[in-house]
């Protein structure tokens, strides 16, 4: 009797996915005793190809993990494909990865429009759309979209932190805003206005630019003419560098808030001119490897060693390469936590139970925490100010 019951009991345990079942090996498509298939979609071609390097860094890091024995004895089979930042192509590629390559999960697809295009599909298919590479707020919606999770601090929260800082330090400010005319720029702008709340009238001028614009000179002239004394700069690296330089050259001396997207010393402030960047205020959640402050930091040195060995073509001043390194570690952590229970459900469950996780590369004091009702891993940042040489933290860790 005992012998008959045992398998039934095991089956029951598996079906209930109780902790007992963890000892049992369990697989969904994409996972076997030998390997875990991880899919990724990045813009290697097209207008956003500058971000393609994230996908390459992740690949390099996963190769390192494989060289060191893999995760719980399994090698990661990383399949990264190109969507050219075109949503229809993203849909096609997501279907290829899920239906043809049968990956266990989709990791770090990049950009808000591409991720929006596959949001519903991934959730219908019940395949994890894990740690998407965009800061939109909508990825933290476990009730309606339990298979999608963000990673970085969302744009709205970050903007609200600047708003609070302005309210506290300069309650009578006249604010000018420059933003990119897309989902990313509008998300920041919304968070900023929400943060100002009743005092949103402090914004005296807001102007947008298109990614295809050669320069933002005209916009900067408009902003300066508004007589504003605070400037919130919601731009991607190239335009950020242009705006910083133009603000300085035209003699406009506002209190200048720069979004975290472009807060890299190596790829933005250096081209713009370090002297011209002096006084900038931004936020950080990762260390900046191009910042002298972290020159001797162990994490940063480890990253340099990793880049040298596994991604020698990668640009060491590009913040994306550091970002990719940290986010890839998060994936590895989740897969480690999943143990031998490599079902899609368990992967999501593990991703939603990160506790005070802080991989190398994160700023001290900033930790990832997730739960079944909180799908936003990184929710805290630190305010920083640039002194002409390096970023200096001047606030406690803010946010949740």
């Amino acid at each position, binding site marked *: 009797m005992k012998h008959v019951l045992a398998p039934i009991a095991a089956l029951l345990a598996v079906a209930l996915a109780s902790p007992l079942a963890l000892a049992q090996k369990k697989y969904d498509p994409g996972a076997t005793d030998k390997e875990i298939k991880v899919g990724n979609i990045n813009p290697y071609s097209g207008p956003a190809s500058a971000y393609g390097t994230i996908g390459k860094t992740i690949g390099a890091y996963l190769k390192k993990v494989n060289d060191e024995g893999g995760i719980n004895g399994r090698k990661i089979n990383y399949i990264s494909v*190109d969507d050219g930042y075109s949503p229809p192509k993203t849909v*096609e590629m997501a279907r290829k990865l899920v239906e043809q390559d049968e990956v266990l999960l989709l990791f770090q697809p990049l950009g808000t*429009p591409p991720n929006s295009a596959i949001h519903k599909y991934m959730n219908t298919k019940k395949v994890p759309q894990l740690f998407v590479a965009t800061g939109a707020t909508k990825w933290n919606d476990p009730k309606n979209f339990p298979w999608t999770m963000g990673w970085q601090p969302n744009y709205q929260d970050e903007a609200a932190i600047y708003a609070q800082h302005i309210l506290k330090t300069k309650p009578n400010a006249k604010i000018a805003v420059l933003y990119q005319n*897309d989902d990313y720029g509008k998300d920041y702008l919304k968070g900023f206005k929400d943060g100002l709340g009743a005092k949103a009238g402090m914004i005296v001028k807001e102007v947008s630019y298109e990614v295809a614009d050669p320069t933002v000179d005209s916009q900067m002239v408009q902003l300066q003419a508004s007589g504003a004394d605070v400037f919130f700069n919601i731009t991607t690296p190239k335009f950020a560098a242009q705006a910083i330089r133009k603000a300085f050259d035209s003699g406009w001396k506002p209190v200048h808030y720069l979004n975290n997207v472009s807060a890299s010393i190596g790829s933005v402030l250096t081209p713009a001119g370090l002297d011209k960047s002096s006084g900038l205020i931004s936020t950080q959640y990762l260390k900046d490897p191009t910042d002298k402050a972290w020159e001797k930091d162990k994490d940063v040195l480890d990253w340099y060693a990793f880049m040298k060995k596994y991604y020698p073509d990668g640009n060491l001043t590009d913040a994306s390469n550091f970002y990719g390194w940290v986010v890839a570690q998060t994936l590895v952590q989740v897969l480690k936590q999943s143990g031998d229970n490599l079902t899609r459900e368990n992967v999501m469950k593990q991703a939603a139970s990160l506790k005070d996780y802080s991989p190398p590369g994160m700023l001290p004091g900033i930790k990832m925490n997730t739960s079944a009702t909180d799908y936003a891993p990184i929710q805290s940042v630190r305010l920083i100010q640039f002194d002409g040489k390096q970023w200096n933290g001047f606030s406690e860790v803010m946010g949740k």
Partner: protein
Amino acid sequence: MSKRNLILFALLLLIVCALPFLVSNYRTFQFTLVLVYAIALLGLNLLTGYNGQISLGHGAFYAIGAYTAAILMDKFGFPYWATLPVAGLVCLVVGFLFGLPALRLDGIYLALATFALGVSMPQLLKYHHLEKWTGGVQGIVITKPDAPFGLPLSPDQWLYFFTLVVMLVMFLFAWNLLRGRIGRALVAIRDHHVAAQAMGVNTAIYKSLTFGVSALYTGVAGALGAIAIQFVAPDSFNIFLSITFLVGIVIGGLASIPGAIYGAIFIQFIPNIADELSKAAPWAIFGIFLIGFVYAMPFGINGAIRMLLMRFGRKAQHAGSGSAVTEPSLKSKEASQ
């Protein structure tokens, strides 16, 4: 159509109908996109291949069609099939109106005007006064239709057949149109505008109508594309889409109906192959494919097939294209400039 061609056509149709039962849903979805692109390319080919009006902005009509379908489904609860005629009609009107001032423009000036249309479209879709309808930068998510009448088909298979039927109807219509008087008039305008006018062809009406019909085709394709993808956003319709369409008709074969299908296969699958060959520089591989194809087949795939057929001594009577219509030759192009 000769008897032999008819048999060939029937055989081809059989294969095309069997296809979704032989391959996975994902592949079926890809082939659906091929059919969608084929309709769009045929539309562009009517305008550029047959009528000689170069458009670098047909992605705009594709976008209008897609958004018309998405808005009708999302805001007004239209069933998916009912959006196609509306999308086509809207594009017909927009295309015709755009064609009127474009009448005054020739060659590269027209190319610029259409290019401007293609470039401006994403910005218009993002425009904040239209946001209520278009969803602004966030776009619109729509639902994929299931097979009706309890047919034992997956949604992908159903959509494939639905698209196939639409495509066949539209191709048949174009074929009928082009092999007769209208087709001859279009080609006459392309090859010698002034002469055509002198012979009594009302070039103005023909040219703007061609613009409208061409936009209609591309708009219907856009609507079908939106239904297949289940999502529209301004980023889906940037200028690269328009350029991809142009590439499609040139590689497929200008002024040929089957060329639209060859071109659609090219623009659907070659970028994927390029991506598989190189992650470092997928566009470079794609570029090499482009140049390679033009070298090997300067008159497109359809041109090459014809040439092959001729070399084997058969009559160059191709299933799809009527005898009234010939390839644009180098001379005629130079003369028109």
